[in-house]
């Protein structure tokens, strides 16, 4: 799951057991251009991820009562989006909430295509290790 907030920033649910090898295996990329393309896709997704749950526990848990309140007040995430995110996390307990700058990877094209309408469901299922 990817949730956009602010300007070109996103919250992302990623399974803690995901590795680059596993991601590549699940895409079916073997070698050549497909391997290069999906390698860049993984690097783009995982570039400069910040673990929001750790951030909350370590730096903000004395200030906010819950991670929901932290997301609402610190990052101005809408209440319904927080609910959606937390429900999704509850159904996928191995996933961690990350935040990231959408343009941190430096290759705008691959980042945009990764979460395009064509790719979104398939890519989010893989990074959450749903199947």
């Amino acid at each position, binding site marked *: 799951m990817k949730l956009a907030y602010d300007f070109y920033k996103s919250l992302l649910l990623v399974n803690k057991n995901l590795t680059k090898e596993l991601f590549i295996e699940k895409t079916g990329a073997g070698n050549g251009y497909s391997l290069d393309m999906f390698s860049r896709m993984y690097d783009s997704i995982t570039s400069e991820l910040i673990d929001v749950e750790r951030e909350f526990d370590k730096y903000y848990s004395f200030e906010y009562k819950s991670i929901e309140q932290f997301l609402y007040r610190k990052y101005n995430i809408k209440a319904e989006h927080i609910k959606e995110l937390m429900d999704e996390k509850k159904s996928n307990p191995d996933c961690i909430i990350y935040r990231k700058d959408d343009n941190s990877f430096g290759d705008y*094209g691959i980042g945009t295509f990764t979460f395009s309408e064509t790719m979104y469901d*398939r890519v989010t299922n893989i990074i959450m290790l749903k199947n």
Partner: protein
Amino acid sequence: MKIRYDFVTNSSSTSFVIISDGEFNFKDFIEAVGVKNNSQFLDIYKSLFNAFNDDMEPARDYYQRHFSGTYPTFEEFIEQRLWKSGKEILPKILEAEAIGKKVYIGRLRSDNDETEGFFCTDEFIIENENLYVDAQEDGW
């Protein structure tokens, strides 16, 4: 005087060169791309194959039809029009023609659909022993 207002969109089209030993076909293409036959993303590369197939023309016909008025020779067209890889690919084209391989040129467009849009602005080479696709001329 014309003043543009509201959103200004930006589209792009970039050239590709295909050198194929025999007809350009999906089986060779997928092998060269390196994606497995059971991949859930096979459709992405099918779209790319179709985009190539829909637009490609035999290289010398393409030159005659579109650029013979701009560049005096086919060789100059390749070297100068393909600004990124022209010098590198010209010997490959001439060698391929000499041994009877097929050479095609065409364009990918960013405003056809989002998949073609991505490939249009990505920089890549697809190759195996039967096929060489140069799409290094990326850009907006």
